[in-house]
């Protein structure tokens, strides 16, 4: 058994280790070490908790048992999960953090003595406020992440679900949460606590259903942020420094990622949250552009173009993840490099379904990270490149974003693919992307459309090289 002061110092140390874990991610070289700092911080926090309670009776066995069960499940998932399923996994993990926060809040509410918060029906006011905020945010994180998970997994349609009176309803529920917290704190009544949790679960659900599939990067980042604030709320209740520091770190991390994602789409945060993108402008934009001539080619043509190029830029997108084409792509690039052709990869901030999604997939396919560039780093190079190979990306290459103020994606930063001498565009059909708008790039003089599955097409090109 160690004194509260000593354990507080250890919690502080583990908080600092968590900061170092995030700091390590500033470059791939230091990142692995950073991850170890994180693991070390977690071990300290858990050990100190055991030592400060000092109760090694029968309950202890059960704690270890449940810890082990969770640990085994977690480790199993971590080893089995394919890299393409990372967005679903992260959404799933967010939901667990949210639910764990809710459960801890429930146990603290039912048995406040164990946490030094007073007695049932007479919980310290400050703690009760912190606890109810933590529980409410946790519940929102949980149900929101479950919806995000279902949408990413394809169990639920990625199309936005909207209905009349949606926004007033959500506003009403948010206000009712504040009222419920107030009532709970004045009455200390259990009933209000359960109602608060139910309503919070409901609003998490309602907030995410109107958001479309292509906006998932913002949603995941936002839920990441929520899970942090929930943890911080519980940290205040438990008066635990490690939890407060972590909550703040995670909360601001998620907020920054959401900001970066919104900027990548040139949309305001509220615009994304209020949802319904792609459900609105579809009809007005596309029908005046029907039946324009398109040049299409086969693997042979593509191989010919690339063989005669001296530099090629690859633009991967979500379609590459869906087709699992990253390995085939890398093989194609290897062949190109053997022929002395310079190849680099250009990644748009919102390519894929979560921040950094494409980078992980390319890393999985053994693409060295110093060949992969962000939008600002590479955008000027398109003008000097011979071939741009667009695989599974669409809206992020649409020149309309620069030229047509009427377009819903006007102002969004896009890759200047059309400046290349020739563009190869791998796509299954001419259908518009998630924003629901036609891509002008399809009809450009220097564009060759390759209608096929991304993986199959890439393999065929490699054979023809």
């Amino acid at each position, binding site marked *: 058994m160690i004194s509260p002061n000593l354990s507080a110092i250890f919690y502080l140390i583990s908080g600092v280790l968590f900061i170092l874990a995030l700091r390590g991610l500033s470059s791939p070289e230091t990142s*692995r070490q950073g991850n170890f700092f994180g693991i070390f911080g977690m071990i300290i926090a858990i050990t100190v908790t055991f030592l400060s309670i000092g109760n090694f009776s029968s309950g202890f066995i059960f704690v270890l048992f449940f810890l082990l069960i969770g640990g085994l499940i977690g480790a199993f998932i971590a080893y089995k999960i394919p890299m393409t399923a990372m967005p679903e996994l992260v959404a799933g993990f967010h939901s667990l953090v949210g639910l764990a926060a809710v459960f801890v809040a429930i146990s603290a509410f039912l048995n406040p003595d164990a946490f030094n918060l007073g007695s049932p029906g007479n919980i310290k006011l400050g703690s009760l406020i912190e606890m109810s905020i933590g529980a409410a945010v946790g519940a929102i994180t949980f149900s929101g992440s479950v919806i995000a998970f279902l949408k990413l997994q394809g169990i639920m349609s990625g199309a936005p679900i909207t209905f009349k009176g949606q926004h007033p309803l959500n506003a009403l529920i948010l206000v009712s949460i504040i009222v419920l917290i107030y009532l709970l704190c004045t009455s200390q009544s259990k009933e209000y606590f359960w109602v608060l949790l139910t309503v919070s679960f409901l609003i998490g659900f309602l907030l995410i259903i109107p958001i479309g599939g292509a906006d998932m990067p913002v949603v995941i980042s936002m839920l990441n942020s929520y899970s942090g604030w929930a943890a911080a709320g519980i940290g205040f209740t438990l008066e635990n420094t490690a939890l407060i520091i972590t909550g703040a770190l995670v909360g601001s991390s998620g907020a920054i990622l959401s900001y970066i994602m919104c900027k990548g789409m040139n949309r305001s945060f509220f615009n994304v949250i209020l949802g319904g993108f792609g459900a609105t402008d579809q009809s007005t934009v596309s029908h005046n552009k029907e039946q324009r001539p398109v040049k299409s080619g086969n693997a042979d043509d593509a191989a010919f173009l690339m063989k005669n190029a001296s530099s090629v830029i690859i633009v991967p997108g979500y379609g590459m993840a869906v087709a699992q084409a990253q390995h085939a792509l890398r093989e194609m690039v290897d062949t190109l490099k053997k022929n002395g052709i310079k190849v680099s990869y250009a990644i748009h901030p919102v390519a894929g379904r979560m921040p950094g999604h494409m980078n992980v997939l390319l890393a999985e396919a053994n693409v060295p990270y110093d060949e992969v560039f962000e939008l600002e780093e590479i955008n000027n190079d398109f003008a000097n490149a011979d071939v741009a190979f667009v695989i599974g990306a669409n809206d992020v290459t649409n020149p309309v974003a620069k030229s047509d103020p009427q377009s819903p994606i006007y102002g969004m930063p896009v890759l200047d693919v059309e400046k290349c001498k020739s563009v190869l565009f791998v796509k299954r059909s001419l259908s518009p992307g998630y924003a629901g708008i036609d891509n002008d790039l399809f009809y450009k003089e220097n564009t060759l459309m390759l209608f096929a599955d991304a993986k199959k097409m890439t393999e065929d090109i490699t054979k023809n090289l």
Partner: protein
Amino acid sequence: MEIDPFIFRLSIFILSIFVGYYVVWSVTPSLHTPLMSVTNAISSVIIVGAIIAGLAGDTETVFNTSSIFGFLAISLAAINIFGGFLVTQRMLAMYKKKKKDK
């Protein structure tokens, strides 16, 4: 008058938000996915609350409503801790630099 300990915790919280802000901006965009999985893992330090709840029962009654929620929370958080750190490890191991000899 003595300062409420809450104020100290609030100070830590606010300062940590700033630390988080600057640290996260320095994360390279190519590591944003590992950033999310590792933040998942560390936010599961909420397990300390779950352990306190789980150990709160006395010797005769290990299980009561409060401790059961604690035990469940332990498992949930443990999935995240192990899953989060290990999957981050797996991802980071894949990030390699170009080989010089090519």
